[in-house]
């Protein structure tokens, strides 16, 4: 699957499914920050 197709597929997920992905991305990002690999907490908006 190419990148465009993948993006389309991700965009077509339900809002609930997308929110679950956002939560996982956020957890991963916070874990990276907590490990010291990144200095600052990611910013919102």
């Amino acid at each position, binding site marked *: 699957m190419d990148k465009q197709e993948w*993006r*389309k597929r*991700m*965009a077509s*997920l339900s*809002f*609930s499914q*997308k*929110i679950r*992905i*956002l*939560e996982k*991305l*956020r957890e991963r*990002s916070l874990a990276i920050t907590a490990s010291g690999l990144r200095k600052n*907490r*990611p*910013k*919102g*908006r």
Partner: protein
Amino acid sequence: MKVTLELINQMQSQGVIGRYAIGGAVGATFYLEPAATFDVDIFVILPTTQSGPLLSLSPIYEFLTARGGRVEGEHITIGSWPVQFLPASDDLEKEALEQAVPTEVDGVRTWVMTAEHLVAIALRTGRPKDHARVLQFLETAAVDRKQLESILIRHGLLPQWERFQEKYLEK
């Protein structure tokens, strides 16, 4: 997010806030592929019963902290999500709330701004990440261009739109 939205809805049904809608990166995710974000932006109409010319977020903070919300800087964390409450401060934001799209997250009713209003607000905010998001909306044809242009005209954002087009869309 379910817990977060349930509490916000509870706050709405008890009259602490009026109409609300999800904006920012989480709102954009309704239309686009998910992109990492730290917080959720909730645009709200505050009840007009508050006295004085300045609208205060205190009733929101009081309601939420009494139910386990934790204030951290400009956010209040509800469940696992830091939330930033942004009172609708002008006609564009008020219109975005009036025309917000009803949806559900895990069975909890909520509202998301239209794609066109998200783009208009991002254009106005104008940071690089806002412009990146506008480009994403345009590239994936997630906005109705006529509808967008009518919003931009109505709210005096054509100069920002022209600058954006010059910078990113014209070769």
